[in-house]
């Protein structure tokens, strides 16, 4: 095959462009992974809640942090049309000292034990009594806490010891690993004033149908996805990551396009001779596209290999918020290959335009 023999005999040129494609593809995969990782940190804990809708205080601007609902609000939301079940959820960021001089913030969610807001444990047991806490796997990794350990959660300037009874797999909220306590314990952690003045919940988790858009005196309901997208910074972070991905893809397309444009330019007289001795334009264009395809596929495979190695080494610690899944790898890879073929379309036009008469015009 003409195309493959050429690649074999002009190894350096094709190896270089393949290397560049691999690096660009690696960049796209890493940026996509960063987007997924950032999203996960920003609020998978919220998305993982077992309901379709979230109710916020109307003045909270869809911020879990700012939202405070009273018992009356919760009762009104439970009675709203379309709501099948509703349960209050409290949120507070708790600074946890898990070792000497070692502390981190946990997104502490208060749930009614046994309600559908309480996540299923993957290890240990559900909440049963006060002063018990479920920790996310991410927190277990971060702090080395395990079932049976004591987790001190802050109450004012003091702290109260909670016993870890179960491990859940819910992820993060606001870049903090989640932990779950009973709603009463949450109220005590979040508000130290007059118990009668304590809010009943931050938000209400709802199961039902067609509840989005419902609102009442001081509360409003949106889909869980909309709640997630309104988490502080999520939209900005997503559009930044998308811009980087599209830029990477554009650069990849241009690099492949320009490379093949230049090597086609170098071969114009040769291609003219081949056309003159009977090669069809289709044959020559197919050979060119075959080269593009090989360069793009090999480049992408190298980049996927690099990404897997990176994940296994650099990212095994929890500090860099990059994650991959098969879907994102396949999407990124396919987009680079398609981008390459689009970039090469220019060269195909050029090949088609070569008039074989040039075979007789060169000295």
């Amino acid at each position, binding site marked *: *095959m*003409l195309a493959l*023999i*050429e690649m074999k*005999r*002009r190894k350096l040129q094709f190896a270089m462009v393949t290397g560049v494609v691999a690096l660009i593809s690696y960049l796209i995969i890493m940026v996509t992974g960063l987007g997924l990782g950032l999203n996960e940190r920003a609020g998978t804990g919220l998305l993982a809640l077992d309901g379709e809708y979230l109710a916020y205080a109307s003045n909270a601007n869809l911020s879990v942090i700012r939202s405070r609902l009273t018992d009356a609000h919760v009762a009104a939301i439970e009675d709203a049309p379309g709501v099948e079940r509703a349960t209050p959820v409290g949120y507070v960021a708790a600074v946890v000292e898990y070792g000497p001089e070692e502390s981190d913030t946990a997104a502490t969610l208060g749930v009614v034990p046994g309600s559908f807001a309480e996540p299923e444990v993957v290890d240990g047991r559900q909440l049963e009594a006060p002063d018990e806490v479920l920790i996310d796997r991410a927190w277990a990794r971060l702090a080395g806490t395990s079932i049976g350990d004591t987790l001190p959660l802050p109450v004012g300037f003091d702290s109260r010891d909670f016993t870890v009874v179960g491990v859940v797999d819910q992820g993060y909220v606001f870049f903090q690993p989640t932990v779950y306590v009973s709603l009463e314990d949450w109220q005590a952690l979040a508000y130290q004033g007059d118990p009668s003045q304590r809010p009943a919940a931050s938000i209400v988790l709802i199961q039902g149908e067609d509840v989005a858009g419902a609102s009442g005196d001081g509360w409003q309901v949106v889909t869980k996805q909309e709640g997630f997208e309104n988490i502080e910074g999520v939209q900005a972070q997503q559009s930044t990551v998308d811009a980087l991905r599209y830029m990477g893809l554009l650069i990849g397309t241009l690099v492949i396009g320009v490379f093949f444009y230049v090597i086609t330019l170098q071969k114009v*007289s*040769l291609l003219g*001779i*081949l*056309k*003159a*001795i*009977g*090669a*069809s*334009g289709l*044959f020559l264009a197919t050979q060119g596209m075959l080269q593009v395809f090989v360069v793009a596929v090999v480049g992408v495979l190298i980049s996927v290999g690099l990404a897997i190695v990176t994940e296994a080494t650099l990212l095994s610690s929890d500090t860099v918020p990059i994650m991959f899944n098969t879907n994102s790898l396949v999407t990124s890879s396919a987009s680079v290959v398609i981008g390459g073929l689009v970039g090469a379309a220019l060269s195909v036009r050029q090949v088609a335009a070569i008039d*074989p*008469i040039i*075979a*007789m015009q*060169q*000295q």
Partner: protein
Amino acid sequence: MAILSLRGVSKSFGEGPQRVDAVRDVSLDFERGEMVSLVGPSGSGKSTLLAMVGGLLTPTSGEILVDGVDIARLGARERTRYRRDQVGFVFQGSNMVPFLTARENLLLVAGFGGMDKGALRRRADELLEELDLTHVAGHLATRLSGGERQRVAIARALMRDPALILVDEPTASLNTELGERVVDALAEEVRGRNKACLMVTHDERMAARAGRLIEFRDGRIRHDGSVASDEAARSDRG
């Protein structure tokens, strides 16, 4: 019947005052086994004629009959197939695909389709042998000498067993001795395989090695005759 017949063939380029008549009302017949030199000053129309016979240019008017088919009327796709199957080209310049070996350059035409690959392989080895190229068959085209390269080009032109061999200044980059060897090899193949060969050249000694010589001037045939009578005419003048 003639393998190639030109009937009132004209070719002009451009329009109005810029119009150039490169070939004017040329009619010629060529037989199988005939090697013909086309000579004349540059701009006399000999190369344009070769390009038209080779299906690289279409005549403005007239007919070019190859085995009775008028190739001037062929569509783009049929013209490509005509060049592939019925024409063997030898160009003056860098004929070869540089990153292929001599043998691969011959087998290249197998990739164009329409022929059994085993038969092409046998034919390539046979032609390499005949043209004394067996020892360089595995060399990259860039490592071949000028004479070897032109002999490979001749072998490639013969690969698909075409009716016509069209040659454009085959010895331009060679010294006289090498040039003579290349043209002799070409003549031997043409006569042995019963092809019709048209060779454009400005080198009189090369031209004289063909059986028939046609001289062009201003797009018209100035002289058409056998080389022997031509040389006689020249010695008469001398």
